[in-house]
């Protein structure tokens, strides 16, 4: 019974809080009541949501991926560089696939370090993050990256194919379908939860745990790269350290959504709600035009409040 409580509570609480935040914002600034505003929020949430899907897979394993920021940035730089000035290079079509492939390669390296070298994921992905930062500095020579987003990138990030619905939302939807399918319907999903619970028992039950871990990190790398591509499409360029502000909110969204930070439990629907909540919160705080300091304080307090409601561990007893 308590397990069910833990899983459904996040949905309930995030849902309620989303409504509260929305009405607070709407009462102060009527422009938030428009469809346009809401759809814009969904668009921003989509970029975020893609990142969170990748992060959640790794967190479910009981690990963590701190290389999200620079995987995003380098993927963005790579895609805009290939797309060229104005996004009109002849090879611009390769920009997105190359960036996504890059993300998978980063994930492979992360998975190698964690699954085979058995370095704690926190510190290994931190190191990879630093290497990627170094690569970027070396490559760009300290200047701002050249190149802009290709037409395709702009289309998926900011375009609207079907009525007013942002294309980015479809991207997020696609990623979400894959996530739910893997986690709920495939053996791989079962193994992810099992490893997050007890890697030794999963190994001794005859699972190829190393392969599962590497696959999850590759997925996270893929999602980080996709997030970078989307952001580059949104800004029509890549810029240094564009990924830095996204790391902590991504992890917060996953945890606020009910996934345990140490792995083993969590529903994807919770992650979706967590992303929506934090996106809306961030945006309403901006609209309120508070000083940056107040925004940070409120952001942190909301996360703590959510966790106190349903993220609490059991008391230690024998």
């Amino acid at each position, binding site marked *: 019974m308590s397990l069910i409580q833990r899983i459904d509570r996040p949905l309930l609480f995030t849902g309620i809080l989303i409504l509260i935040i929305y009405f607070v914002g709407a009462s102060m600034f009527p422009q938030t009541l428009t469809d346009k505003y809401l759809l814009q929020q969904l668009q921003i949430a989509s970029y975020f949501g893609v990142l969170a899907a990748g992060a959640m897979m790794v967190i479910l394993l009981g690990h*963590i991926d*701190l290389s999200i920021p620079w995987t995003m940035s380098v993927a963005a730089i790579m895609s805009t560089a290939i797309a060229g000035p104005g996004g009109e290079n002849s090879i611009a079509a390769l920009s997105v696939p190359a960036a996504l492939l890059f993300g998978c390669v980063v994930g492979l390296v992360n998975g190698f*370090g964690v699954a085979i*070298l*058995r*370095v*704690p994921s*926190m*510190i*290994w992905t*931190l*190191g*990879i*993050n*630093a*290497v*990627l*930062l*170094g*690569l970027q*500095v*070396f490559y760009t*020579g*300290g200047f701002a990256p050249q190149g802009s987003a290709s037409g395709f990138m702009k289309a998926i990030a900011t375009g609207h194919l079907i009525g007013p619905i942002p294309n980015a939302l479809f991207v997020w939807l696609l990623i979400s379908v894959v996530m739910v399918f893997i986690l709920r319907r495939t053996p791989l999903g079962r193994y992810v939860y099992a490893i997050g619970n007890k*890697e*030794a028992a999963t*190994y*001794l039950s005859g699972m190829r745990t190393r392969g599962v871990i590497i696959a999850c990190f590759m997925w996270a790398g893929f999602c980080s790269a996709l997030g970078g591509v989307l952001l580059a499409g949104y800004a029509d360029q890549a810029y240094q350290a564009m990924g830095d502000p996204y790391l*902590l909110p991504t*992890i*917060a969204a996953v*945890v606020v959504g009910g996934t*345990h*930070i*140490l792995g083993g439990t969590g529903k994807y629907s919770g992650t979706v709600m967590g992303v929506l909540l934090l996106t809306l919160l961030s945006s309403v705080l901006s609209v309120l035009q508070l*000083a*940056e*300091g*107040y*925004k*940070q*304080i*409120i*952001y*942190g*307090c909301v*996360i*703590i409040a959510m*966790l*106190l409601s349903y*993220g*609490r*561990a*059991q*008391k*230690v*007893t*024998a």
Partner: protein
Amino acid sequence: MADLVIRLRHNTGGLIALILFVVLLIVFIIIHPRFNMLALEATANQGAALALVAMGQTLPVLTGGLDLSIGAVLALSNSVGSELLSGPPWQIALGIVAVIAVGCVCGLINGLIVVFGRIQPIIATLATGAVYTGLALLIRPLPGGAVDESVSEALTYSVGGVIPTPVFIFIGLVLVVWLPLKNSILGRGIYAVGSSEVAAYMSGVPIKGSRLLAYTGAGFFASLGGLFLGFQTLSGDANGGVTYTLNSIAAVVIGGTSLFGGTGGVVGSIFGAYVLRIINSVLLFSGVPSLAQPLFQGAVLIFALMASALRLIGIRNRLDVMS
């Protein structure tokens, strides 16, 4: 003799950090074009703030937790300091006390949330870090402020012109704060909780008190770091703590403390922090083009981590690597 061997074996991590530090220092001295006491001083100063933060980070890590807000506490302390650390000596002294109090309160809040809120440290301190950064921004929206210069000189120069002051600061902290702490019941409780929380509970170890002490201690050392940074830069910067958090984790790991808790110590973390800083300095003088330096820094960190994987070669039972 057997005792010495056992003690050495228990502290291999810290010893490796020490050896690494000495080797790098020697390399640095050799490479440096005009090595003199000033260069040594500068190196000591560059690493001092990180070493202090790393000392603080060690305590929660020993309990099997983590403090991701420690950089923010540093920035907050630094910002508060930039408001208070000027004027007559008694005012500066009060300012120092106030800054340290701020750090301890932040650490205590972290501890209360982790212990009584029973929220996992990683995410709890992630959130409180945002709050502390916000507070720092409210106090110091833009870098600036005023810090007394004479105290600054005393702290950042050398004693007798030979040994940099930070050396004495660290020796003093280890002797006066760390060793008594380690030998106290609560301090041993920190190790016990990190080693096996269930066993500690069954043995009647004061788990709550030990954890509270660990997180408060992290805040304490972070505030010392913020103080030093303030005296060093003569200003306050609310965003100055960003790299310190993750770097402190790297320093703690290099210093031989296990992220799983239960083993390690503060002394190793000091050396770990300086290893990180000296690598930067060595790269600076090594002729590697400045644009390639961040890449080298990252690569060195990765290679150091891969080296820690060498211990796997000797592992014959695959279950041993799964905790």
